[in-house]
């Protein structure tokens, strides 16, 4: 089935299609109308999963020239596994990327990556200093979680940590994603949380501030980022394992979704915040 949306809202349908074709799913983007940073990073993660299983993604690229150009300028195509097949050459060049995508491989590299992405934000939104700082803070916290949590025992697989920043008409979108052991896997390293399931792990981490650390009060960065994002009228979404957490304004919900490895986090902040530092 051709996908019309490859984004936060449409990803569950896409994942169901990809699962049935694993490890050589046909990703039909020929009718694609809309994509976002979240959908793109899931595509890269899926490509990496397929390659690890001895397969490869098979891509039908968008027919709409504007959507196709957007995808090419996103910076995401060069991150797809080399074995990816596509019905046309995969071009990843572009002068002004809609999406800045980076791989987060080692903790030592995180600050440099954040510095580069922050410079991109500062150049784009010179009057949005406060919100740029908030996104920099979120990037620092979320990106370091990949080397610290996604594969803490150095198992022979690539957690494929990715970070994307996307500027849209009404909001700025930050996504940090990996396909590592997930929140539950990380939390279970702390004996207090061995009996949790995916959904309750999400609540424990995001609402109660639970962490892998034995000493009470350590960790809790995800909860803090969630609080800061909400304070600025943003949206916060985390998907991990079989659970998904979504919050907008004061209401939050935790739902059950199809199993997918790792942690994928979406932070959306209103664009107006980046245009005037004093507005909240």
């Amino acid at each position: 089935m051709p996908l019309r949306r490859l984004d936060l809202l449409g990803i569950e349908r896409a994942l169901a299609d990809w699962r049935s074709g694993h490890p050589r799913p046909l990703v039909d983007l020929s009718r694609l109308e809309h994509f976002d940073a979240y959908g793109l990073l899931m595509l890269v993660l899926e490509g990496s999963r397929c390659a690890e299983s001895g397969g490869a993604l098979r891509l039908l690229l968008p027919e709409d020239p504007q959507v196709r150009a957007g995808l090419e300028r996103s910076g995401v195509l060069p991150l797809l596994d080399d074995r990816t097949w596509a019905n046309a050459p995969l071009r990843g060049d572009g002068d002004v990327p809609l999406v800045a995508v980076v791989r987060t491989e080692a903790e030592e590299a995180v600050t440099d990556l954040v510095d580069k992405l922050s410079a991109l934000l500062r150049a784009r939104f010179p009057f949005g200093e406060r919100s740029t700082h908030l996104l920099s803070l979120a990037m620092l916290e979320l990106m370091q979680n990949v080397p610290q949590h996604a594969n803490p025992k150095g198992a022979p697989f690539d957690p494929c940590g990715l970070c994307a920043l996307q500027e849209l008409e009404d909001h700025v979108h930050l996504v940090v994603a990996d396909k590592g052991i997930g929140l539950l896997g990380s939390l279970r390293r702390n004996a207090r949380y061995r009996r949790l399931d995916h959904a309750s792990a999400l609540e424990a981490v995001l609402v109660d501030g639970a962490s892998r650390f034995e000493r009470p009060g350590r960790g809790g960065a995800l909860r803090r980022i969630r609080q800061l994002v909400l304070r600025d009228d943003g949206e916060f979404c985390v998907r991990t394992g079989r659970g998904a957490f979504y919050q907008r304004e004061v209401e939050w919900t935790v739902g059950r979704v199809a199993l997918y490895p790792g942690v994928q986090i979406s932070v959306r902040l209103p664009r107006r915040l980046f245009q005037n530092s004093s507005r909240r």
Partner: protein
Amino acid sequence: MDMQGGRRFRLSSYGARLGTRLEGGRVRADLLREFAGLPPGGALVVDLAGMEVLSGSFSDEALVEAVAWLLEDGPPERYLWVAAPSLETAEDLGARLTARKLALLALVGRERTPRVLGHLPPYLQSAWKLVQERGALTSRELAEALGVSVQGAAVRLAELERLRLVALERETRAMGGTQNRAVALRP
């Protein structure tokens, strides 16, 4: 008590955005080295000027862990302060200290009087404020001011000293014996 042998530790020399636990661990090692050279009564002031972003993870690893070490294993009569250009700069640090039920003396902006960043129970807050206002207080004076027992006041002062939020000086009483006097710490 004016800080003797105070040293300034500028975080911005490590970068304007500090966020990872790895960086935090390195900075803490440097902080503890600086601490080792402080004389009795000396203070190390961690200066946040020039910082754009200071993450909670970094703060936890570098500063909150340093405070925990100071209280558990650190040399006596040495003090750790933080100087922040604005309360917002120190916000995440304050949240982390609160989560760990720890506290740190802070100078914010151009304020000349210190405040406590992090967690300080109300019964200790009132005692700490009185010591700050009056400059120095014995247990008896504090007991009279708060309307609590002398023993209760002594416990409050001892706890504030353990948290490195006041200094305790032992003095001889006119009628014999000794008593402790809590002295406010000044930048």
